[in-house]
């Protein structure tokens, strides 16, 4: 009799226990759902927020970074900051910088990477010239002073990888007809995305901006081949026996410069 009573009691207890557990599990499931949705929304990284040098891909970065701020503290130029809750920026607590405010000075010893305890900033980055924080893009040719025909050159001159990451490319100035336009041209393979050019641009709003690679770059189709490269590789014409017709080059004589020295203007 007492045995029966005992088991009856314990089964009631067990029912209650299971009920409690089920309730707690449901509560946790609801919380987990909210959290999953929230983190999915918080994954969007604005285009002007740039991760420190050596940052893993955004997806991996968000799984690695513990938001400790050690990289921020060891940056001698106060470039980096941690995203605060509620600001429309990167995921809360993660480090980033805004090039137009303070760019990365590309320290040789990369103290930010050395400070990172989790490897969210990849310690295999040892040469800062290999950093890939983003790519500078001359985003507004209509306002860039060099494109207007002046010799501003500021973005070009400040680049730590001058003549590698950014070059001045000369084209005839068709407006004046007798000058050159020195267009600042970024070479994405060399550009580290440090943002020195964006910071330095003399315009009230920079004409050159660092963007994440995913936005800045197109992707060439895998099967495309550049004929001239293939030819150089092969050492001879790829299709032998094809007659090489003369290339049609714009007639130099048809171009009448407006300003002609010696023509008595």
């Amino acid at each position: 009799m007492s045995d029966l009573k005992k088991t009856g009691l314990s089964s009631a207890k067990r029912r209650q226990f299971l009920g409690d557990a089920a309730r707690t599990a449901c509560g946790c499931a609801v919380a987990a759902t909210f959290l999953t949705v929230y983190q999915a929304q918080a994954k969007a990284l604005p285009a002007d927020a740039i991760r420190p040098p050596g940052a893993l891909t955004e997806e991996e970065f968000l799984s690695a970074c513990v938001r400790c701020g050690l990289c921020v503290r060891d940056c001698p130029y106060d470039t980096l900051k941690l995203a605060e809750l509620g600001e429309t920026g990167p995921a809360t607590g993660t480090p980033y910088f805004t090039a137009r405010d303070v760019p990365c000075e590309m320290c040789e010893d990369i103290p930010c990477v050395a400070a990172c305890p989790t490897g969210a900033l990849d310690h295999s980055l040892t040469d800062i010239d290999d950093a890939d924080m983003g790519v500078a893009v001359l985003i507004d040719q209509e306002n860039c002073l060099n494109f207007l025909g002046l010799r501003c050159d500021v973005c070009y001159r400040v680049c730590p990888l001058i003549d590698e990451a950014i070059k001045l490319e000369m084209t005839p100035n068709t407006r004046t007809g007798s000058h050159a336009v020195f267009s600042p041209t970024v070479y994405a393979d060399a550009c580290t995305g440090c943002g020195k050019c964006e910071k330095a641009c003399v315009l009230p709003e920079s004409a050159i901006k660092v963007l994440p690679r995913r936005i800045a770059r197109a992707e060439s189709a895998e099967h495309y081949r550049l004929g001239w490269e293939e030819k150089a590789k092969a050492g001879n014409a790829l299709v032998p026996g094809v007659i090489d017709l003369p290339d049609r080059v714009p007639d130099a004589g048809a171009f009448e410069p407006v300003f002609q020295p010696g023509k008595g203007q």
Partner: protein
Amino acid sequence: MTTHALDAQSLKEKKRSWVLRNRFLLLRRSTQLLVLALFLAGPWAGVWIVKGTLTSSMTLNILPLSDPFLLLQTMVTGHWPELTGLIGLAIVVVSYAVFGGRLYCSWVCPMNVVTDSANWLHRKLDLKKGWQPKKHTRYWVLAMTLLVAAGSGSLAYELVNPVTLLHRGLVFGMGFAWAAVLMVFLFDTFVSRHGWCGHLCPMGAVYGLLNTKSLLRISAKNREACDDCMDCFEVCPENHVISPALRGKGDDTPLIQHRDCTSCGRCIDVCDLDVFSFTHRFDTQLIQPTSIEPGPRDPVATKAMGGHK
């Protein structure tokens, strides 16, 4: 009998000053402030002693420390931290596991001030207990945060973790982090007594797990003197841990062995009869009752003083 009890009451209040009745509280506030000051000395005064935050820090460029819960979240996403992170983790885990897992909660964590204040207000307003989650809820929450981290491949909980939000806010800039802290305060005051630290916080849960075999323990050594005033139960953030030690009979250990005990020392503070004291886990000694004490567990005396706070 009643007069006797009241006499004893006024007697014991007279001989214990305010400082004595709050000594561990004051000590804890000091260590909490000190920890914060060490983090703030750099950004505020340029004295770089500790860099980073409680999630991961570097002291004097030599001692790395990392929070186990944070690194656990990272690791379940499949990312393996760098050596400094792992060393910092090992140091933290070993130190807390040896000395007292939940020392973090009561002596270091900045949220402790918030939840203690909430509880103070709760007591002042004489509010009801409110919602009391079941005792394993914090482990469910812990499992949930880790599952979401593993499933989403990101430290999702860190977007809402009020503890790291608060500390990072204080050291790096608050943003809207105060809102998360306010929610914890209101929750603890009006919705659930000791709700956050005592039932939900997964960080506390991890430190609790480290507390299972720690050396530092509270002992209700002098339990024979207890007059059932209930002050310790009233003030303890985890008051289910007290009974087995305090109400133990004969050879039952006077040690508070439950891993939920935060070693905050509040029970020592508030007890006018010096029932509790800090000791180590091997000290199971009991103080034998002396004849001078008023009859302990005297049903009438108990009744007369029962309502006294």
